[in-house]
Every structure is written in C-alpha cells, then in structure tokens.
C-alpha cells in the first residue's frame, strides 16, 4: 500500500524482522514478456529473488505480449531462461514449481483498449484467486515507441491510479532509452506525467543496480579517509571507461539510430560520473541522492565550439580481430548502412563547474569492438609535490584509485613501493579489494536489486525526470554540433581497427594534456 497502511492492515509481526526490507504482496506485469530481456534478465532475477526468499509468498507475474501463447508455454519458456541465465543455478525444482504456479500470460496489443480491459479483468481475477491486495508493478520491456501508448492504456483502463494512503500501489518501470534527445525525453515525460505521479515512475538504468556502483557511495561516504581528498586539490583527473568487445549483435537497425553516445554515455556513463562527482547527500534516500546527482549533471560545462574537436572524439570500428577471431567493420554489419556515419566510439573531455571539481578534467570513453569488456572509474591523483628519488622518479607514477564496475567488481589502489634490496628502487604495486575474494559470494544481479527496490517503493537507484532531461540537455548539444558538422561537410569520423582502444585521435586528446588513457 502507498504510504502508511491504516491500523487494521498493519502487521505487528513484521516488526523487528531482520529482513525489514520486505515487499508487500503484488503482481508484476511484464509488457514485452516474449522478448529477450524478460527471458534473460527479468524472470531469472525474479526467480533468484524467490529462491533467496526476498519476495512475498503471495506474488504473481503476468507476462503481456503480442505473441500468442498460453500460460504453460510461457512458464516453459521462462523456465528455460532461468535454467540458462539465473544467478542461482541449477533451478530448484520445488522453488520453481511454487514460483511457476503464479506465472501467467496474456496476449494483446499495446494500444488496444480492449486488451487492457481484459488485462484488468485478469489481474482482478488473480488478486481474488491468490488473495492479493491489488498492488501492481508494470514493467515496460518494449520498444520506446510503445512507452507512451502503454501508459495511456494503463490510465484508460484505470490500472495506474495515482498514489493515495491506504490504496494499493501501481508503479511503472520504464526501460531505456528514455527519449532519443532532449525534445523527445521532455515529450515523453509530459505524456507519462499526464497519467502517473513521478513517485510511480521508475526509469531503470541497470548500471545503477550493480553492486560496485552502490559501493561507490559507501566507499566515498562511509569512509573518513577518501572524501577529504576527493577534490581538485588532490585529484589530477578522472577517467571513466565503458568498453565492449561486442559489435551491434544483430541490432544494427537500432544502433544506426542510437550511436554510442546515446546508447552508453547519456545514461550509464553520465550516471556513473554523477555518482563519482556528487556532493554528500543529506540522507541516503531517493530524492537526497538524486538531488545531488542532478546538481552534477546541471554543472557539466557546455563544450565551447572552438574546443569541440579537441574535447569530443568519435570513431567507427573497422574490421579487426577480437579474441583471436576476425570480425567485420561496422559498415559491413547486418542492418547497417554501408555509408553509415554512426559513431561506435566516443571519447570526451568534460569539466564540472563546481568548487570541488574546478579544473579537473573527466575523460569518458566508450566504444564497441574494443579489446575487452570493462567498466571502470579511475581516479588519478596528483603527483607528490617534490620527488626525493632523483633519476628513479621515472618509475614513480601517480596514485590511481580504480573502481571496477564490471567484470571482477572491486577497487584497487596503486602506489609506489620500495623494491626489496640495497638500492632505492621504486616500483608501482597494487592493493586490491575484490568482491569475489573478500566476500566469497557473487554479488546479486543488477536486475534483482532494482526489481526488489521498485517493489519496496525505493527509487534511489532509478533516474528521475529532471536527471534524464539534464543529461539529454548536455548530450543533445553534442548531437546538434555533429549535425552541423555533417551539414557543412566538416564531419570527422576516424576509423579504428576492432580490437584496439579506439582511434588515434583519442590518444592524441590525452597526449595534448600530457596524459594517457589507462589500460584497464
């Protein structure tokens, strides 16, 4: 129930349960249930949550999609998905059996009012049969063009009433991309807000559900020693890398429209940047954290036209080699225009106009077909003000704190150490913390955390409307400048061979500042 439950419904046995973050009974409706995301991520996450006893015993999932199939076929398909992709494998027959009994499917079109009337009737029937209180989460795992029609249909069918005390909750999770530029994001926010209160909207960015991204907040704000040096007095620059080895993987049509700036930077990397750079929130709760992230996004300095080509580098991959296998260039991929000008790599030099970060460049890069899949933040500290060790100073490097988001989640601090022996030789060494070896358990999947948070009504790790618009405001300027360059015939899109770290221009951007990219 939204807000406090009235006295008659309050459950005294929930007091003091250590599992205090326990969601109320609910039904989750997944639009696009026959799609890849539901099979690979959503149902495996819900199964793992059930396995870990983090979902209420009265919980149902209703898949909704255009594809015709019955409940049993849907259950079978989802079971195969869980067997292949769930974190907790092999699938436990008893857990699955209980979980699958409350899995249902319904066919329908996303803009058909009759289909939504049938959906409402089916949900009411499920509530009656399973003794559910009418709480619902709607997951929009569908193409972006369907977001507004689905939400409109939910409103028309009275499936998404605005929150009120004592009333069952209705929440909507919206997948990325949320708009393709500032105008479309604003338009979508307007359409969504016609039906829903902002508190009902959960814009998902699965990066925020990753354990290391959350640990970034703990690392910064639960330890006394890092925050005092987390500023321009001690930090030389910050590098954020989000690289992939894969190409477009059959999504050439989508990627042609998106490009890496929309696909990775506008959402994932700017979210990571805002968490790394934000001020301490007044409390660890949704709006406290999101207010501070928003300030960072609003403080991103607009890149001056005169510096644009020095601060924004894009590229496109050519044929090359990944993991010992020859791979084609981007323009030879299925669904890609042979004369495509879509960027598959981008490197950016960004400044944040704030007291804390004045003069500290943030270098972001993201690309496809790079040598390895990695997402990391590297905080590069300033050198010691006076080097005592003369000619051996060559081997002294700046301290680097690297926060690995994926894979091998963890944190490493590089520093110089004296090599054993009579000579005063200095060597860089690394002090590492890895989740895998320190805690011995695999961190939960990002979707597990995020689905659970939505059921609990905790929006901290979801993106708010103003955050989305602020990041699009900044990114859309780059797109506009690229459009102007294309129109004036001044477009620069250097190629890089698949399996390299991007075009030479990206290295030159760093070299011009006397720096170099890390090899993560």
């Amino acid at each position, binding site marked *: *129930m939204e807000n406090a*439950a009235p006295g*008659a*419904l*309050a*459950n*005294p*046995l*929930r*007091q*003091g*349960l*250590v*599992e205090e973050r*326990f969601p*109320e*009974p609910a039904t989750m409706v997944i639009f696009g249930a026959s799609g890849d995301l539901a099979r690979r991520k959503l149902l495996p996450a819900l199964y793992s949550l059930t396995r870990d*006893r983090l979902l*209420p*015993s*009265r919980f149902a999932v209703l898949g909704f999609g255009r594809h015709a199939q019955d409940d049993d076929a849907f259950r079978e398909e989802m079971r195969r998905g869980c067997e292949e992709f769930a974190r907790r494998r092999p699938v*436990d027959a*008893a*857990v699955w059996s*209980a979980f699958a009994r409350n899995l249902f499917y319904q066919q329908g079109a996303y803009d058909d009012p009759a289909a939504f009337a049938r959906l409402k009737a089916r949900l009411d029937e499920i509530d009656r*049969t*399973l*003794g*559910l*209180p*009418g709480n619902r989460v709607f997951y929009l795992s569908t193409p972006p063009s369907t977001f507004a029609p689905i939400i409109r249909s939910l409103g028309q069918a009275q499936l998404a009433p605005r929150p009120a005390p004592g009333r069952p909750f209705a929440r909507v999770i919206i997948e990325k991309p949320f708009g393709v530029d500032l105008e479309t994001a604003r338009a979508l926010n307007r359409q969504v807000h016609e039906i829903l209160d902002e508190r009902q909207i959960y814009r998902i960015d699965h990066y925020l559900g990753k354990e290391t991204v959350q640990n970034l907040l703990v690392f910064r704000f639960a330890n006394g020693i890092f925050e005092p040096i987390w500023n321009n007095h001690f930090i030389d620059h910050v590098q954020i890398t989000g690289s992939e080895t894969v190409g477009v993987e059959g999504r050439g049509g989508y990627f042609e429209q998106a490009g890496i700036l929309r696909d990775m930077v506008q959402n994932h990397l700017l979210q990571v940047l805002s968490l790394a750079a934000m001020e301490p929130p007044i409390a660890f709760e949704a709006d406290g954290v999101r207010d501070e992230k928003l300030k960072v996004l609003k403080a991103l300095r607009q890149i001056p036209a005169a510096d644009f080509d020095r601060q924004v580098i894009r590229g496109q991959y050519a044929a090359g080699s990944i993991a*010992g296998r020859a791979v084609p260039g981007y323009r030879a991929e299925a669904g890609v225009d042979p004369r495509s000008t879509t960027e598959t790599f981008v490197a950016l030099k960004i400044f944040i106009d704030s007291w804390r970060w004045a003069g500290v460049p943030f270098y972001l890069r993201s690309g496809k077909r790079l040598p*390895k899949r*990695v997402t990391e933040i590297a905080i590069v500290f300033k050198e010691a003000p006076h080097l005592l060790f003369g000619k051996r100073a060559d081997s002294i490097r700046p301290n680097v704190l690297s926060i*690995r988001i994926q894979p*091998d989640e963890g944190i*490493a601090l*590089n520093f110089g150490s004296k090599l054993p022996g009579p000579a005063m030789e200095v*060597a*860089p*060494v*690394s002090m*590492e913390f*890895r989740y*895998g*070896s*320190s*805690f*011995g*358990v*695999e961190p939960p999947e990002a979707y597990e955390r995020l689905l659970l948070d939505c059921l609990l009504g905790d929006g901290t790790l979801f993106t708010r409307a103003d955050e989305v618009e602020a990041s699009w405001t900044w990114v859309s300027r780059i797109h506009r400048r690229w459009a102007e360059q294309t129109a004036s015939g001044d477009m620069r899109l250097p190629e890089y061979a698949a399996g390299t770290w991007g075009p030479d221009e990206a290295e030159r951007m760093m070299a011009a500042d006397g720096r170099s990219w890390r*090899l*993560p």
Partner: protein
Amino acid sequence: MSDAERARANFERFARGEPIAVEVGEIERELSSLWQQASRVSAARLGRAELSREGSGTLPGVPSETTAGSAVSRAVLWNLVVPTRGRAGLEKTKALCDAIAPAVPVRAIALCLDDAAGGQELSATIDSNVVSQPSGGRVVYCEEISLMGPPGAETHFGAMVRALQVPGVRTATLWMDPTMPSALLARELLPVTRRLIIDTASCARPMDLRDLEALAARALPRPIADLGWLRLSSFRLLFAGVFDPPVGGAPLRRASRLAVRYRAGGDASALLLVAWLGLLLDWKPLRAAGTPDGGLRFDFERPGGPPVQAFLVPSAAACDRSAILGIELADGRDEYVVTRTAVDEAEVRVPIAPPKTVKLDAASDAELCVAALGPRGRDPLYARCLAYAAQLWSLR
C-alpha cells in the same frame, strides 16, 4: 629429509589443505612463510594461465610490471574462535569452518580440549582453506589454526587467541559445545569477542534456556546470534506474511488460541516461537501447565483484548533441526495455519485464498553461521525473545 625437502613437503600439504603440525610459538611465522610460497607458485601459475588465454603479455586489470610480484591475498572478514572438545569435535569444527569460508573468509581458531591428549603442552596445526569459485578465476584464501591440549589447557587459550587475532578484524566466538568450561568464555573469550554465536538447538533441556539467557545478558551489548533462532526465520517469515495486506493484523489482535506443533525434544525452539508472538502481540504470561500429550499450555492476558491460550504440542513427525511442524492461530472466527508438509515445504491456509504450498529454507549449520556473521546476526529482537522464552519456562 633435508630442511628444504621438509619445507617443500609442508608447502605441498598446505596447498592441499592438509593440517601441518607447527610449534605453538611459531604459528604466525609458519603461516607467513607458507603463504609467501603460495604467492610465488600462484604468480607463476596465474601468469601461464592468463597468458595462454589472453594471448598477450599482460594480465587483465593488472599493470604488467606487477605481474611478476602477484601476491596471494589472504581474505579475512572475521576471526572465528570455536571452542570444542575431543578429536571428533575438532573434525566437526574444521568441516564447519571449511564450509563457511567460501561465503565468509575467516581466520578460524579452533580451541580443542582433548581428554585423550597426553602431557601438559598445547599442540598446534595450521591448514589453508583455498576456495575456487565455480565461475573460475576468483579464489578465496584463508586459514585455520587448531590448538589442542588436555583438560586444563583452557587457561592458555585466552592468551593464544589474543596473540592470533588478525589485527583490525572483528572476532566472533562460536559457542556450540555446552560441555566446554564456561569460565573460558566468560573470562577469556568474551572480552575479545565482538559477536557471540550460540545454538539453542544444543539445549538438551529447556531449562538450559535460563543459562543461555544469563550468558546473553553477560555478553551484552555485543550482538548475540542464535543458530536456533535463525532456523526459525523461514517459519517466522512465512507466518508473518500471512498477516500482510489484505488480511492485515486484525486477526492477530483478536487471537484467542495459538498452537505450536513441534518435534518432541525441540521444546526450546517451540518456546522461542511462542515468545516471538507473545512479545510482538503484547501478551503477558500468567501461568503454565502440562497437557496430557506431554506438551504445555500457557495462559496469557493482554491489554484491551481477550485472554489467549497457547499450546505446545509435541509430535513424533519428521522435521528439520528447527523442530517446528506447524503454527495455528484462531481468532474465534477463522484459522490461520502454516503446516510443514515436508522437510523443506509448508502449506499456508488463510480464509481468503486457497491453500498454498511454499518452499521452506533448510539451511545447513554453515549457512546459518554465515547468516549469523552478517546483519542477521544482529537481531535486537532476539535477546528479548530469549528472555521471554526463559520466563515462559520458569512459569511451569
């Protein structure tokens, strides 16, 4: 055998996780030496494996210049002290620590009083606990230290524990063997313990609850975790879930009768479960009496509500170590029932919905210890429930 050969043989046994006898005063030095050898071997092995996989000269995520010096990092989240008695107890303790390590790396310090040991001296063994994760690559390295001595040797254990604690790491004491001298815990171990873990399932008689309550009171303000209490978690969660909306808490406030069915011998668990309900529902215990079936009946009063009768009903049915077979709560109109239908399964019956079968967790002792070392081991409700349960027993 030369010193070098002996060292190599020791390292090979250490790498296989076999215990190595060491001088009591040399434990840290021996461990340090063996881990250094492990680092050298690991660096060589890791280098070869990664080079063949990556086809390049650097390790992923590690600057190439550090490759040659890759160290094996020992992981320690807790010092875990486990007093036990006899060789069989020691073997059981070591198996438990082996099972805990993959989830919570610990430096395990087993303190064993061995009635069969001769002489007066302490003896010591060390062994490694190296855990390869199924996903490959990630490895947890931790260690176990076993100290053995004849009865009376417990006077040395406190000093040994203080010397062997990894600095800056919290210490938990797993007090599972009621035959160990209580002075060891009270005088030597409690002062260095940050979390005390007990197991009410080891209470052979419910009157032992009184002793545990006294122990818990002495340990305060340290968190006390009880594996027996944690075993009740899945039943408590399931029963609590019955009263989530739309049922709500009204039936609990109207309740007039409660029955807890339990496996005979599991009185302590049954008492803890009644104590949990009594505490949260504000029931004041008035009296207790035996019942013809060998169980107990308790009468409660509560402010502004009808009196409540609670029955503990023993049974010979099969059950897991939680010993709970079912809970029935009646409010004069309806019944709310959770009944175990198999060791790991229960049926939930509420008036508003058809019966539903759900899975019950059947956690091993190692899994419970892992939970006890985490946030679930800091349950502020527990000490109050333990005191309430002890009070219930004293009414009898």
